[in-house]
């Protein structure tokens, strides 16, 4: 199951025509304690780059963009009661939403893990 990364610090796991999206370990470390996550409603359609979710720390609110186009099939309901999951396990239990992909070939411009690591190291 390939995992891709964006320059906006989202990660995306692709499994056939479904994908899971979250924010990276680096992103959570920059935000500090996450206090609130607003996830998208099921059925919502996104184009690549659309604002899809909002993640809030005490002093900052950041938009999370959809790395690819697709329709939301599920949002992580756990985050409502326990936004700290994003701090504790951003690239696992702290996932944001799942998408039904509109185009399974739309991964140009996304990075693999090694490239993303190199990208972050330069920041």
């Amino acid at each position, binding site marked *: 199951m390939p995992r891709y990364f964006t320059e906006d610090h989202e990660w995306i796991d692709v499994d056939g025509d479904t994908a899971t999206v979250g924010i990276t370990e680096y992103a959570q470390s920059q935000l500090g304690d996450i*206090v*609130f996550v607003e996830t998208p409603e099921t059925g919502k359609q996104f184009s690549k780059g659309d604002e899809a979710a909002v993640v*809030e*720390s*005490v*002093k*900052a*609110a950041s938009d999370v963009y959809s790395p690819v186009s697709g329709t939301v099939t599920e949002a992580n309901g756990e985050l409502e009661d326990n936004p700290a999951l994003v701090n504790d396990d951003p690239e696992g239990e702290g996932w944001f939403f799942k998408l039904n992909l509109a185009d399974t070939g739309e991964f140009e411009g996304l990075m693999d893990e090694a490239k993303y690591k190199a990208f972050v190291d330069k920041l």
Partner: protein
Amino acid sequence: MRYLPLTPDDRTAMLAKIGAGSVDELFADVPELARLDGPIHDLPAHASEMAVERHMAKLARRNLTAGDGPFFLGCGAYKHHVPATVDHIIQRGEYLTAYTPYQPEIAQGTLQMLFEFQTQVARLFGCDVANASMYDGSTACWEAITMAGRVTKRSRAVLSSGLHPHYVSVANTMAKFTGDTLVTATPELTAEPDTDALIDQIDDETSCVVVQYPDILGRIGDLSKLAEAAHAKKALLIAVVTEPVALGAIKAPGEMGADIVVGEGQSLGVGLQFGGPYVGLFACSQKLVRQMPGRLCGETVDAEGKRGYVLTLSTREQHIRREKATSNICTNSGLCALAFSIHMTLLGEKGLRQLAEINHALACKAADRLTQVPGVELVNGAFFNEFTVKLPAEARPVVRALADKGMLAGVSLGRLYPAEDALAGGLVVAVTETTTEDDIEQLAAALKEVLA
């Protein structure tokens, strides 16, 4: 100049430290064309405290004050007795001259007061939560309408004809720019508020119904049916309270199903002040809290585990969310909120209920007495401390004629609805604990004379 502590020697020493030859050098970035040759022309030079006080006192004396004679004005601003304690406390420099509590460790006084204020407002309105205040009732009302739009993702608001016309005007002004649709109507001089007409207007596009309680004519209607009808169409019910003292006598809007309750808090602690500053009250149900505008104070603990308070959920606000904020509000009405809260603490539930009873009792007396004047009819079925009478003549000139006799008789509907001939005979009369039976008697006698 008494407010400026720097001495000429200080200025010289400071310029030396800075390395500037003169203060003009510090303004070097100001382009040539905008430099002035000296103090701005056509304005007077500085004046002593005594001279300024004399100047202002002279202007103050040219106004007829609410204490100068019988006084019956309301319509969104009420004359109540404010205990001396309120003004004493709000003049303490620690409250008066503090800033927004952004450094909570040295602002617990303001923060705890706001937490108490929020709780008082929420309880009074029968809601789960309240914010730390808005500018005033009219702006709080528009903020509530936009909030309902965010919650329901709809943009058609149905406004009651009994909503204060200034509040309607504010909403109309804003809606022109935001593209919201407002359904509005002019009030009619009927005994009951327009509940049924409002229910008929609610459709699947409606974001909210906005109803004033008691309304601009002083009428009171049960909000339960309206709440049910709004909720059936997934719209919100917004109740607007311009006289919070009323809620010592009548049911809270939240209790009857209102989702958002906003209000004008001027009645408690603030005073008339020719219309401002006042204090906007804003309360809603818990589930809507993240869509709320304005500052919120919340409880937490400090590093040693002691209870303390901070401003919280700030990511809704402009200083963090910028163009995506729930509102552009920054400064609120903190000191007026303090005055409201102190007055409410002095009253307590027992005092508020007594105050409300007295207001209502005197208003009943006034309604009975004024309707003995030939040709004067009471419009309202129910009312709290404000009611509308229909005069056999245009009310606006009558009010002016009574003012010439040193009596401020009420608000003529002609002042509020100048284009509506059907309302020209309407006079809204407010009666509070400050009204004496003699005031009522004087008004009745003078009214009889003017109408004759």
